[in-house]
């Protein structure tokens, strides 16, 4: 019978491990943020007289791929990745995602921004899972000399790393999925796949007006700040925030009505014009098949006995 292995670690080593881990995480975050910002600010102003996809390295296989095939394939492949349970195939999935990124000539800055968005989620797993995963036979626990009840389970760490790797692999694919075709075309593809057309229209309008509402909210917040508002834990703050949210809601509601009026005034009758004509070619299906086969291979590898 195999038992749990307890390795006693002196407190200073635990402290060094925790601090080192935290420092590495914070450093990685700061580095990613700086890199993303540098990538965003670098370069000349883009030429808006031509589609950005053409100037930004468009014309790759992924750009030409039928959007319906792209959605089905990448979503299907992503579901396969979520079924992986071992770290090696998960790392291989990251490698595949990186290759796809290169093939799609994706913007490094945007990829980094997407990665930044999931860093907190991944960090939480890496910290919490080793401390909370139930002990099983064969597990190795690092235990602090003086605190016997607090064990750092290495199996938990591997599990968390596997989840993190899968999350990273899927996140890396979001850029090829969403940035190799204009958003209206992607949503049009979704509608052709059976998603309600109204949902696509709402996503499109939300994407457009999210920026407007964000700017309105910022100007209103500035309006409060210049009259002395600072967030505190008191009733006045609560009341001011409630007023702020209420007014933002009223303004957003009124704007929504005006936007709908503007759409009707230009002949909108419930449907947007089709942004592109979709034609499925044999090559599109072949590419989808190859990609899904790669996913299937990862799954089989994952299920093979180690």
């Amino acid at each position, binding site marked *: 019978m195999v038992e749990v292995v307890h390795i006693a670690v002196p407190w200073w080593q635990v402290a060094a491990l925790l601090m080192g881990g935290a420092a590495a995480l914070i450093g990685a975050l700061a580095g990613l943020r700086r890199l993303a*910002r540098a990538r*965003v*600010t*670098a370069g000349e102003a883009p*030429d*808006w*007289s*031509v*589609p*950005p996809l053409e100037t930004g390295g468009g014309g790759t296989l992924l750009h030409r791929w039928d959007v319906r095939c792209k959605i089905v394939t990448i979503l299907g492949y992503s579901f396969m990745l979520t079924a992986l349970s071992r770290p090696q195939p998960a790392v291989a999935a990251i490698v595949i995602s990186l290759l796809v990124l290169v093939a799609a000539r994706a913007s490094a800055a945007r990829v980094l921004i997407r990665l930044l968005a999931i860093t907190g989620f991944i960090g939480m797993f890496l910290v919490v899972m080793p401390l909370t995963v139930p002990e099983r036979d064969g597990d190795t626990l690092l235990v602090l000399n003086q605190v016997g009840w607090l064990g750092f389970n290495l199996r938990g760490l591997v599990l968390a790393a596997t989840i993190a790797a899968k999350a990273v692999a899927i996140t890396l694919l979001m850029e090829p999925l969403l940035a190799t075709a*204009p*958003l*209206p075309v992607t949503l049009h593809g979704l509608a052709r796949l059976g998603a309600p057309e109204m949902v696509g229209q709402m996503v*499109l*309008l939300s*994407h*457009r*007006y999210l*920026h*407007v509402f964000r*700017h*309105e909210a910022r*100007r*209103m917040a*500035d*309006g*409060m*700040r*210049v*009259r*002395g*508002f*600072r967030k505190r834990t008191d009733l*006045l703050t609560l009341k*001011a925030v409630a*007023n*702020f949210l*209420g*007014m933002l809601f*009223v*303004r957003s509601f009124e*704007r929504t009505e*005006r*936007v709908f*009026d*503007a*759409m*009707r*005034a*230009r*002949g*909108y*009758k419930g449907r*947007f*014009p*089709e*942004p592109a*004509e979709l034609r499925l070619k044999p090559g599109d299906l072949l590419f989808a098949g190859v990609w899904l086969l790669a996913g299937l291979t990862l799954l089989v590898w994952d299920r093979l006995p180690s």
Partner: protein
Amino acid sequence: MHELTPIAPPVEHPHALLSVRDLHYRYPDGTQALCGIRLSIAAGERIALVGRNGSGKTTLIKQLCGLLAPGSGQVDYQGQRLQGEHLEAGRLSLGYLFQDPDDQLFGHTVLADVAFGPRQQGRSAEQAEAAAREALQRVHLVDKAYKEPHHLSFGQKKRAALAGLLAMQPAVLLLDEPTANLDPRQEQVFLDLLKTFSGTLICVSHDLLFLYELCRRAVVLDQGRVAHDYTLDDLVAQRGELRSHGLDFSFRLVLTAEAEEGPAQGGPVCAPSTADPDAAPLAALEQYRFRYPDGTLALDRIDLAVQSGERIALVGENGAGKSTLLACLLGLQQGSGVYRFDGRPVTRRLQTTLWRQVGLVFQDCADQLFCASVEEEIAFGLRRLGLPKAEIRQRSDEFLALVGLEGFQQRVPLHLSGGERKRLALACVLAMRPRLLILDEPTAGLDPHSEALLLAILQQLEATLLLVSHDIFFVQALTCRTLVMHQGQILQDTATADFLQDRNLGNLNGLAFSYRQRGSDAIRALQHAHEQRHVHDHRHAGEAAATEHAHPHTHRIVHSHPGDDQAHEHPPRRFYGDDLPEHDHDPDHHQ
């Protein structure tokens, strides 16, 4: 000189393009917006739809393009009632330009948005794109075709919205405040575009000088009724009528005229500063720079000193960096370089307390007013200052009275008119007694009556003032010193009187108002037409022989005022108030 014509009855066109009969409309909240409107509009007419805020202009426009259904009465377009299938077809040839371009630009890119209308008209994707590109070419935005609308400047958005209508080749353009918040250069571009439009034009605006340049017919709305329907010349010539409908903008004409002749009457007294030259300025920036996170350099080596009690104008085109400079002065943004307030460097700690010293009235009051009542709104900042309740009440009453809003304490700010909201925002800031008061485009969206009220209030204030405005009249009336900003730098720091004389600076910043000057001159001439009634001898053709006798009749004498100390000039012309054709043979008697 213009000849004054008698007021004509409402025009009835037998084959009107748009006609409105006994139109009534009440909003769901019970507000009666339109009462018995009768209007007939012929193809190709250019109509100015004017009136106070809340007089029903926007509601009428929405009725004309079928966005609102009449409560009673009817709207006809091309001879048919605007409803059902005819309404759906009609919308494709009735272009409505909204006041806020963000409402109208719902497309993913500028090109997609502009092509939306032509696609709805049934054109193919290729035809729609060609029409969109042509329209973008006309509004000088073809180089921004694939830009997302939220990344455009305000003026560009406005032009893109117009392109979306022009691409549909509408028979009628309905414009709601087309020049609101535009800088003069963008305004001129807009005017040029609209002048070339060959269809029917109906324009709602408070800017009568703009309308004077564009339209020939004026329809005045008052409390949902058509109060007058006559030529724009007749409207602007009659100050009494303008005043009674809150449209009297003549106070602007006085100063516009004087700008070319010398110091303005009614402007601030710009005496040389008596302040101790060694005293620290109230606010000072040295080599100040600010760069946005996306890399845009918004402020570049700004050097600025604001002395206590000064009244300064900050002018420049949209995007020159004015708003960013305000944000830095308020402590909302922090750049690099030196910023001293009252002699002390503005550190992060001081930055968080700058709101006690610097007050800002926003361009759009909606950004500033968020409380449920006027009383709460004005008390919001005062509570943050930590004032006792009695003083909060006393200051609230004092400053509401100052801006003419006594008795408004329990009203909801959201339901006030544009002018009232602007004055409330001003009262909220003034009640905090800021040492530096900043006004960002205070006249945006106000009707002339509200502008005149605001001007009177601002002229009374004794505060250090920084006015950001495209409105050269307010700059002239309120400030002594002008800073000209261009591409993030202060190009010129000069006396306002000198700035107004300097055509080069005006041209550089698009602040030269050639058409406004032209319109002002013409309107002043019209407004100085007087009626006189006196006795003259006249020759009348009798049955046997011509007879001559004296009787009184009305003259309308158009004259101009070259200067206060000079005599009036009467041109050799005549206009009789009676309809006797024989008088046309009389010799002129006002040579």
